[in-house]
């Protein structure tokens, strides 16, 4: 290894160091700027696409409501007076499932994936059941998912 540092090599390394430092200084704030900001954990309320909370009283017996949670689209079904909440996102390729009351099951319109009333796969390509949420009702009648 050549241990002798010539003037040219020294200047080359100095300039490279200064440029590298400048790039690092410029890149750091840009990286932080681009990183998604972590939001404080808040109540995961079931809302409509405009962000308005959906009251539990609006879901009648045998009916269902499609809305949003912090994690994405959610479908809530009322059967025998009890509310059941599932992720509305099909586990196959991410299409939105529909509730078919006459068959008591969920159907994915994209590739005909079928899920039973508890979200388990009946048939079709979906590799996993629909994610199920626990439900709490606030004093104002809004639905909190967890």
């Amino acid at each position, binding site marked *: 290894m050549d241990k002798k540092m010539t003037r040219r090599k020294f200047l080359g390394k100095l*300039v490279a160091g*200064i*440029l590298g430092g*400048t790039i690092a200084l410029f890149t750091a*704030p*840009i990286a*932080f*700027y*681009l*990183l998604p*900001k972590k939001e404080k954990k808040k109540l995961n309320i079931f809302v409509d696409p405009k962000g308005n909370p959906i009251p539990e009283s609006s879901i009648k017996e045998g009916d269902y409501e499609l809305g949003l949670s912090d994690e994405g689209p959610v479908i809530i079904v009322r059967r025998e007076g009890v509310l059941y909440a599932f992720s509305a996102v099909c586990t196959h390729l991410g299409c939105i499932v529909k509730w078919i009351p006459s068959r008591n099951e969920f159907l994915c319109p994209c590739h005909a994936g079928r899920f039973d009333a508890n979200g388990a796969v009946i048939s079709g390509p979906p590799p996993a059941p629909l994610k199920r949420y626990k439900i709490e009702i606030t004093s104002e009648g809004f639905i909190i998912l967890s």
Partner: protein
Amino acid sequence: MNKILKAIDERLKLSELYEKYLSGYMVPGNLNFWYCLGSVLIVIFSIQIITGILLLMYYIPSVDKAFESVMYITNKVPFGWLIRRVHAVGANLFVLVLFFHMFSVLIMGSYKKPREIHWITGCLLFALVLVECLSGYLLPWSQLSYWATTVATNFPGAFPFIGDFLVYVIRGGEKVTQLTLGRFFSIHVSLIPFTIFILIAIHIFVIRRTGISFPPGTDETKVKKIPFFPHFVLEDLKVIYIFLAIMFLIVFFYPQFVLPRDALIPADPLSTPEHIKPEWYFLANYQFLKLIPNEFLGIFLQLIIAVIIFLLPFIDRTPERRIWKRPVFFGIVIFGIIFYVLLTIWGYIS
């Protein structure tokens, strides 16, 4: 790594390009500080493009959301304040350095044959940068944005016959509204930057074809030449770092120069702030218009001056570049600059 680079070079012959266009490209060894301003301008343009793209990620071009989104960038997004301030300060320095660059070209007579195209593209770039600044000014939808744009877009109305139509087209309607914001946003982020990029490419291309001009008064046959890279690039870097130091001094310590109080208040079309004035680079034009009793005449005279400056290489055709051998020209330039600076100061304090 070396092996990969060698393999790429073996196929693409990049080292040939490096030798031809960088290390083998010789420039006069006596180039001074003024010759580095073009590189500074390229750095500023790059900074504006990068910060502009970053701001676009959060900015919403809607009259209801624009100010809110800018406040979100400034107060909530990590380092958003920095990105916004650098973009705002960078815009102002872009104009300032362009002034200096054009001043040096004027004084050194570098616009003369064979460099007429350099001057023409430079003038077009200057005009485009001013339009870029003006269009970007409206985007935050603050009191300052709204009223400065209202005043600025009123001026073309002074033209006889087509004035009202021009204002209508520029604003997209009778008043400054969402339609104005939409068209200003569109040209600010796409049309003008793209055109500036093309013009810079042409500007650099013609510089490379004719070569960099020698400082006036030097004997071209006796001046020692140096390689563009690394020798002249290092000189450029020195000036670029001085520029960056000035820019960040303003960004960190004097942001109020570019973001005054009215820039922090959302636009209110029913309340004009007191003493609304254009940006510093339009103050001279603004004061000039105030001095001339007829608005059309004021605009027309300024247009005449702009056309004379634009066509300068075809008006001043003497080959002499040394300023001390051109006393009349030197007198006009110095008078023009003093007049411009005085008008700017007058416009600021009036």
